[in-house]
């Protein structure tokens, strides 16, 4: 029994990370029906940017180990700016009724980023030093041990999901996002600047992507070729949860994490495969996902 509980809890913690992988994808699809096939590679770009910044800081200020933590809000602001500019300069130009151009462009970006990272950082797996946070653990009643970092990640995933959903439901920006998602033509007729709204959405998505990248780099190792696998997990979480609902994405991510963890319990080679099987079964039984929101 404890064994099962332990497995499910570990799965939920893994799911927290997948949720952060997936929220950006969910947001961009929800607002502008754009499927960012470079999601996984952008996550890695976030990880490696953090790795490079930390390495740089080590040279510049070797004794100050809290500096990276203090600078992380700055990294999120840079990420927002990156997403904003990417949307304005590139993605807005390929959005339209036909989903193919944007798919091709993000697919191209995925290849470019992957090779760029390979060129700069080599294929070696790396990780982000977290001063022991990644190995710290806490005991909870029932003889179960949980890692501090994974618990922190799950907490961040839940608060981020809540924050996004709240922003969507209760702010003027969120209202604008829903309006352009519902009916672009009428939203523009009301005077909304859809292209600017899209850029805000992508900016926010890139903050989430960067956060996911940094946490992934802290929790485990990252290597430039990991992108497609991260994208796959993000996809599975979004689709299990149902397009356009952030709570759905969180639920989908948790379910995926738990399924994989149960699979790992049977055989270390089965975890990810188990996740795919459950994903495919769910597609057969409930192709719209658990909590669909977005239509079309």
């Amino acid at each position, binding site marked *: 029994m404890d064994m099962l509980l332990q497995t499910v809890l570990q799965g939920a913690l893994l799911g927290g990370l997948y949720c952060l992988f997936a929220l950006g994808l969910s947001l961009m699809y929800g607002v502008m029906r754009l499927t960012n096939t470079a999601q996984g590679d952008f996550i890695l770009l976030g990880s490696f940017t953090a790795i490079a910044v930390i390495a740089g800081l080590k040279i510049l200020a070797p004794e100050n180990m809290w500096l990276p933590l203090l600078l992380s809000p700055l990294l999120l602001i840079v990420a927002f700016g990156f997403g904003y500019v990417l949307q304005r300069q590139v993605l807005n130009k390929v959005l339209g009724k036909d989903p193919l151009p944007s798919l091709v462009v993000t697919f191209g970006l995925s290849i470019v980023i992957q090779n760029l990272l390979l060129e700069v950082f080599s294929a070696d797996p790396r990780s982000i030093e977290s001063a022991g946070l990644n190995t710290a653990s806490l005991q909870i009643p029932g003889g179960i041990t949980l890692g501090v970092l994974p618990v922190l990640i799950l907490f961040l995933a839940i608060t981020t999901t809540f924050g996004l959903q709240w922003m969507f439901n209760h702010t003027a920006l969120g209202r*604008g996002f829903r309006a352009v998602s519902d*009916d672009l033509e009428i939203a*523009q*007729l009301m*005077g909304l600047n859809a292209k600017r709204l899209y850029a805000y959405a992508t900016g926010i998505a890139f903050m989430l992507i960067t956060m996911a990248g940094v946490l992934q780099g802290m929790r485990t190792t990252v290597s430039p070729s990991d992108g497609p696998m991260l994208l796959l997990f993000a996809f599975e979480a979004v689709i299990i949860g149902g397009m356009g609902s952030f709570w759905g994405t969180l639920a989908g991510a948790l379910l995926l994490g738990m399924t994989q963890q149960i699979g790992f319990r049977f055989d270390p080679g089965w975890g990810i495969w188990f996740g795919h099987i459950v994903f495919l079964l769910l597609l057969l039984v409930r192709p719209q996902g658990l909590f669909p929101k977005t239509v079309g």
Partner: protein
Amino acid sequence: MTALLQTHALTAFYGDAQALFGIDFEVHQGEMVAIIGANGAGKSTFMKALTGLVSTQRQQISWKGQAIGGLAPSDIVKRGIALVPEGRRLFPSLNVEENLLMGASAGRKGEWNLQRVFELFPILKEKRLQPSTSLSGGQQQMVAIGRALMSNPAVLLCDELSLGLAPIVIKEIYAAMPLICAQGMTAVIVEQDVSKAKEVSSRLYCFQEGQVSLHGTSSSLTQEQISKAYFGMPDAHAAVGGDA
């Protein structure tokens, strides 16, 4: 006196097909102008061209003497042209109040705000937090009108207000028009019901196959003239006033 809104030999396409073939149209400050015409006559495309949803040449539409044809819809609404679109087209994931608030996105100042819209249609105040999809057709039409008014337009364009509504509801909706226009609002309404159009408007245009087949002071036009312009047949007395 220059017209508030004017088109000059306006041409426009509906998809790949040309829908408008040189429309000359004008509306003056404070006027209520009706546009009638059979299905496919180009009325809705005309409304879309005026609001920038369908592209046209710059010089073909002028607003207070300034060429505005083909500007982005968001630019046009900021100048003071608002559309109540055919089929209402409320935002389904927004509630009633949020739909109304979207109308204020253009940021124009004026007398219209949530308070005024709720005074005009009290039922909306009661249902303000309900999903817009849960409302009846007539109530949805009220939201669509309110949403357009929230932009504080100088000209209100209404595309087929009565579409799919029961006669009693149509009456209720039209009863609000004098209240809306009381402060000197200019309005252009597209209406399939010819007698309704004649009744509420001061001037009337009839479209046929993308051209103006008739226009004049509403009260001076005879049924015979209208039916001829509407159907393009000289002998269509009986059909006048029908819902074609």
